[in-house]
C-alpha cells in the first residue's frame, strides 16, 4: 500500500473518511486497500456539542455526506501525558485548545484537521486545528476540492506519484 500521503492532512468528505478501514497500526487507516492515511481535513456544519471543561469537547461535523465524530482534548494541564513537557509550551497548547472549543458552536461551519482515530470501532478525528469558516461557499468549494483530489490524486496515487 502507498504511504506517500501518510503525513499529510488529506481533504476527505465524511462518507469517504468514515469508510476507511483500520490496519494493524492503530494510527493508520487504509483507503480502498491502496492508500495509507493518518491525518485528515474535513469541513462541515457543527451539529452536536458535548463539552466537559478541562477534559474534552466532543462534537460532530456534518458535510451532507456523513457525520464525523470529533474529539478535542482539553486536559493538557492535568494529564500525566503532558507532565514531562515544558509547562509553558503545554499552557500555550491548552490555551489554543480552549480557544478552539469556544469557537465550536452548533450551526458553525468548521474546517477541522486532526489525526484519524478509532473509537469503539468507529472512525473519528482527534482534533489538532480548527478554523471557523464565514464564507457561505466554503462547504461547496471544499466538496469540489475533495472530489478533484480523490479522482486526480488519492485514487491514482497507488500507481503513480500525486502531483
Amino acid at each position: 500500500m502507498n504511504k506517500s500521503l501518510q503525513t499529510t492532512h488529506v481533504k476527505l468528505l465524511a462518507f469517504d473518511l468514515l469508510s476507511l478501514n483500520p490496519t494493524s497500526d492503530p494510527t493508520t487507516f487504509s483507503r480502498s486497500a491502496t492508500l495509507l492515511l493518518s491525518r485528515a481535513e474535513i469541513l462541515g456544519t457543527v451539529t452536536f456539542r458535548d463539552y466537559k471543561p478541562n477534559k474534552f469537547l466532543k462534537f460532530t461535523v456534518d458535510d451532507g455526506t456523513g457525520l464525523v465524530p470529533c474529539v478535542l482534548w482539553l486536559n493538557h494541564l492535568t494529564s500525566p501525558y503532558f507532565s514531562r513537557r515544558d509547562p509553558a509550551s503545554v499552557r500555550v497548547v491548552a490555551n489554543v485548545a480552549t480557544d478552539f472549543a469556544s469557537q465550536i458552536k452548533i450551526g458553525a461551519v468548521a474546517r477541522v484537521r486532526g489525526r484519524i482515530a478509532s473509537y469503539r470501532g468507529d472512525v473519528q478525528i482527534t482534533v489538532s486545528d480548527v478554523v471557523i469558516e464565514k464564507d457561505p461557499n466554503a462547504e461547496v468549494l471544499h466538496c469540489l476540492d475533495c472530489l478533484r483530489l480523490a479522482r486526480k490524486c488519492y485514487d491514482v496515487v497507488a500507481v503513480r506519484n500525486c502531483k
Partner: protein
Amino acid sequence: MASSAIKSGALVTLAELHSSSPFFKDGTSLRVTGKLQDYSVETAIATVADGSAILKVDTQHLRDLSFRVGSMYQFIGELCIHPDNEPILQARVGRNVDGLDLNLYHQSLQLLRQFQTDHMNNQSNNLKQS
C-alpha cells in the same frame, strides 16, 4: 441528545422534495437551502423557496438566528410529513447563507452524487475481487 442519535442531513434541493422522491419520508434527515419567502414570529414557521419549489421549516428550536425575508438560509433537520401530505422540516440547525452561489451549489451536488455512486461501485468491485 447523544451524538449517535443525530444523523447527517442529506443534501437535497427543494425541487427534489416531491411525494415520489426517496427523500420524501417522515423522519428523514435533510439539509435544504432556499430564499426566505415568509416568516411567522408567532409560529416560528419559515417558508423558503428555490425557484418555484417551496418548503415550510419549523424553526422553534433555533436560537441566535435572525430571519430576514429575501435572505438565503440553510437548514438541517428532520422531515415531518403531515396527514395532508404536506412536508415540514423540523430544523435543528440553521444559518444565513447570503452570498452562496446557488448554481455552483447545484452543480457540485450533481458531481458529488456521481462521485458517491462511483465510489460505492469501486468498493463493491474491490470486495468481489478480494
